């Protein structure tokens, strides 16, 4: 009944976003623009991790691992052929391949998703803290592999001088797609089966939810968007090293999900904006006062306060009312 009104609200928000992108691109300087790009990438990361951690309750710390896979795959595919041969020892077909950014990033996302499938099959038999530790192990394995696979990744040196392709016209549509997918899942039967696993996996299974398949799907969907974000990141920074996607980053994304409210898309969205802007605000402060790490300490302090005073996060599992039709409330 309110379906059409709902669609109008979303359409208006999307158009508003396009207007915003056009406006900032013509008014603000490069520095601010790059911050806004980062904010967008963080939104993709937080909203996609929310599908895994928030909806399905899989406490995964592996998101940066999937980003790294997506980032490296995309970077190698878009790297100019002329320079590839100087740095890397790739198989012939790969060495002669130079792809446009968009298909390359899709392939990056798909590779990350396939890796999630491979990792998920054994690891998702674990629960709770065990799963968190196992995904942490995965993150470290990815870093070690990248560091040691010299011929393809240039090891610890990383790949630099990547084409600076990422701009808001790439980031913004991916933000829209990520939010759309998360939203669509959350308010569907498929999403309800994910939420039921988070709430009580035994009861969910006794009601016919295929636990294993649904958990793997949640990890794979999250990983795809992490891979995309990795590609965007690499071509925004124009460099990628094994340490780009570290545990600290996993910590930041998890904080965004927890503070926003596990399961709330709007919450993850807003928390991603708050935290990525905060870090940027602290950066000049750190440099001027020569005290590095204030940003991290501040973030951790906010996390602790939220966990004590509002453990369900800013939004709980809910979305603000104006975005909902009557029957999804």
């Amino acid at each position: 009944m309110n379906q059409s009104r709902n669609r109008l609200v979303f359409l208006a928000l999307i158009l508003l976003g396009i207007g915003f992108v056009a406006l900032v691109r013509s008014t603000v300087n490069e520095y601010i623009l790059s911050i806004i790009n980062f904010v967008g990438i963080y939104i993709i990361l937080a909203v996609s991790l929310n599908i895994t951690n928030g909806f399905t309750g899989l406490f995964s710390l592996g998101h940066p691992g999937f980003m790294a896979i997506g980032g490296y795959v995309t970077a190698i595919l878009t790297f100019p052929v002329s320079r590839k041969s100087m740095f890397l020892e790739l198989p012939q077909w790969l060495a002669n391949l130079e792809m446009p950014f968009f298909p390359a990033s899709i392939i990056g996302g798909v590779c990350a998703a396939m890796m999630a499938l491979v990792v998920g099959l054994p690891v998702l038999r674990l629960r709770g803290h065990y799963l968190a530790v196992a995904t942490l192990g995965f993150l470290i394995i990815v870093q070690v592999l990248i560091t040691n696979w010299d011929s393809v990744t240039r090891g610890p040196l990383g790949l630099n001088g990547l084409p600076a392709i990422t701009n808001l016209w790439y980031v913004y549509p991916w933000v829209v797609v990520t939010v759309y997918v998360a939203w669509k899942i959350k308010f569907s039967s498929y999403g309800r089966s994910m939420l039921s696993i988070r709430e009580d996996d035994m009861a969910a299974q006794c009601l016919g939810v295929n636990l294993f398949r649904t958990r793997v799907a949640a990890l794979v969907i999250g990983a795809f968007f992490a891979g995309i974000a990795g590609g965007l990141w690499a071509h925004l920074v124009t460099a990628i090293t094994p340490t780009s996607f570290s545990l600290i980053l996993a910590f930041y994304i998890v904080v965004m999900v927890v503070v926003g409210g596990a399961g709330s898309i709007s919450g993850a969205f807003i928390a991603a904006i708050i935290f990525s802007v905060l870090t940027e605000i602290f950066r000049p402060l750190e440099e001027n006062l020569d005290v590095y790490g204030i940003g991290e300490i501040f973030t951790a302090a906010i996390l602790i306060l939220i966990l004590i005073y509002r453990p369900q996060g800013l939004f709980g599992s809910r979305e603000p009312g104006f975005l909902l039709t009557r029957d999804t409330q």
Partner: protein
Amino acid sequence: MASSNSVLLKVEGLEKRFGGIIALADYDVEIRPGELVGLIGPNGAGKTTVFNLLSGVLKPNQGRIVFNGQDITRLRPDQNAALGIARTFQNIRIFKELSVIDNVKVAFHIRMGHGFWKTLMHTSDYRYSENEMEQKSHEILELFDLEAIKDQPAKNLPYGIQRRVEIARAMATMPKLLLLDEPSAGLNTGETDELVKTLRKIHDTYGLTIFIVEHDMKLIMTICQRIQVIDRGRMLSTGTPEDVRHDQRVIEAYLGKSGHGKQYAQG
């Protein structure tokens, strides 16, 4: 109702060990379509183990479970649910953060839910099934008198109503066999009376086969047609409520060899 000589559930020689402890041994049961059968026994007798084995939460060490002509001994709970076995839990396991109606809708997923791609593409059969689920959920909520509180998060409800939500949710899987694990645990007298009414209603409305584990003698004696008694993992007695009530072994199992047992069993 199907012919009385057909058997819906047939269990033979079921055994479950946890390490060296035998939780259940040599357990048999036969349930015909439309029957309302009770399972009783003192604490730790293995009643919940029986249900965990029947629903697939645990796998037996020995024995065979045949449901509707199909061997389901090794199947997972979700496969059993698909075949038509639904259950509730002794210590309520509702989805606390979800609304009452979403609790029920989760159960419809198995019958009419769609996967990731159809959901994303918003296909016409996806839209159809979402509407269908909405309507069927309202029917179930209506039947269980939960319509008025459908949007409340389940965690906010009183215990007795949570029980009802759990039973409503199990019914939404459209089961052939409903396993109720101590449905009156933690309920006060008024709530228990409500529960009996609800159970009678679903048994009469759907001709549903119900297997019920209970502590409350009065409840089980009034609604069950047939009762099994187990003690320390072994079958003790089986028969009509009247038979079981007067079985000396049952009385002893509950209260030791004492005259008070008879009174207790008569509740």
